[in-house]
């Protein structure tokens, strides 16, 4: 990948996504925004995994009737699928918890709802 600038663009995007996500998670007080931050973080890491497996000019790793030539690596794609499924489950649970926090406190501001500091 030396000197091949277009190939590095995904990695730059990964770094940007992860740092944006970390900033959101740390700085925001709105619970929904924290959830969004985590979702962006997951997207960044999925992109990272997919980029790892990419080979330039490769074709999709399906063995039946595959054309000649290099394939992209199948393993990172399998990992990403699994991680997307897991991220969906996490997201659903987080959002449902936010809803029930909202029902109890009438607010999704983390500073107001956190009664249990210290």
């Amino acid at each position, binding site marked *: 990948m030396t000197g091949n600038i277009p190939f590095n663009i995904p990695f730059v995007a990964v770094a940007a996504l*992860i740092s944006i996500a970390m900033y959101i*998670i740390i700085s925001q007080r709105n*619970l929904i925004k*924290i*959830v969004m931050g*985590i979702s962006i*973080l*997951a997207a960044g*890491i999925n992109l*990272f*995994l997919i980029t*790892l497996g990419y080979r330039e000019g490769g074709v999709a790793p399906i063995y039946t009737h595959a054309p000649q030539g290099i394939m992209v*690596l199948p*393993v*990172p794609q399998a*990992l990403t699928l*699994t*991680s997307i499924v*897991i991220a969906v*489950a*996490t997201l659903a*649970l*987080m959002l449902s*918890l*936010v809803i*029930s*926090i909202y029902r*109890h*406190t009438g607010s999704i501001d983390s500073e107001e*709802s*956190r*009664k*249990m500091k*210290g």
Partner: protein
Amino acid sequence: MIIAIPLLAAFLTPLIGRISGKARNTFVITSLAFVGFLVIILARDIFLNGLHVYTLGATEPIPAGYMVPIRIMLEVDSLSIFMGIITATISLIAVIYSFSFMKGETGHNRFYTLLLLLVAGMFGMEFTGDMFNLFVFLEIASISGAALVAFRIRFADSPEGGFKYIVISAISALMVLFAIGLFYAQYNLLNIGALAQAMQYTMLDKMALAILIAAFAIKLGTVPMHMWLPDTYSVAPASITAMLLVASQASMYALFRICFTLYGVTLNLATVGWIVIVLGLLSMFIGVTMAIRQTDLKRLIAYNCVCESGFILLGLGVGLAVLGNPGALATYGTMAISGGIFHMINHALFEGLLFLVAGAIFYRIGTRNLNEMGGLGHLMKFTSILFLLGALASSGIPPFNGFASKILIYESVYQFNPILAIIGILVSILTLAVFMKAFFSAFTGPVLPKYKAVREVPKSMMIGMATLAVIIVLFGLFPGLVREWLTDPAANALINQGAYIEGIMGVVP
């Protein structure tokens, strides 16, 4: 098998629960008892014959024509099975305890389903031989764990504790995934044994190690990242708190598996060892000082948990720091690791007991606030004796198990660096002070008029707590046996990186 049974049972539970509640309870407990039985058989086999490798979907770890393992596999050695024993014991006890404790709640089917999922996730984390599987099971355990923390959704603070737990777990799990990506980028491998063999300790590996240590340190609540732990532990149902304790120990197991087996001697040992030691010391000190000023009983115990996991980190950190030095390793390194591992099971036992006792008090009087308690010793004699027992064990008073493991840690750490041992003893004394405060304000004194009607807790909760107490006393009376049969093999397994790699890769030609 051990992972599959709780997983299958988890999905069968709601179906059986439709037939009748009693059938479901019997089913849950039978499946867990069966799993425990399997764990013990496997443990015996491992101590006699060494480690086991299971390959899913094939018989040979490395298929013909390939140089590297491509299948998913499980690898169980003495340390994994040791963690398995802890998990099996605590989950069985937690289920027995929950039968009465959760009686006032609704949605039992879902509760036990989640509980079994949590058990499956923890076993998976402990037995896996594959980095990505580790991530998957970590997520299974955290999602079901968070749902269980927030289970009593009618209280305002339960969903908040659950939310904190899931946010923390999601972040740490994604960090783990990122580190796995870094490994894959370099070696095209996911298997722990194969990775350990290929490990070059490049710059990227160092980054991955830093990310992994940070991720698991978040998950097990060492001090710079401990904020979520008291919030979560104090709002979860008591039996679930005991389970979460084991879940964080599973993360601790993963941390040590990575430090010792994955990196092993290629690591810059002294530095990483000291990082772990400093994390441990901070946890011990801040944990205990924060515990002193708590008025919420479960929060107090939760801070004490932070402190005790500091002890475990201290023991294993010292072991890690001298791993590259055979002489020091033989004189005190092995002992430090063995003490740390011994403290792990003790930690699960006595903190589990304390949480269950706190839950029993909450069950009867409906508050966790120490200032509102008093005189409960007259009304709940059995419970108060158990609390005292757990507290003494936790502060390392001789006849109980906490003493046995703490003395191992002190002795070995003293040879490494005397100041560390002195801090350890100081923290222990402070722990005793914390618990004496809690004990006197909750159990002694005159009976408060509003608690006149308080009775002893129901039988199934009592059985759960008493079993833990009996194990604590037995471990305290026969520490030599425990060391010989459980912790020393586990410590050796941790040190012996070569055997783990060989299990996967076969004898290297």
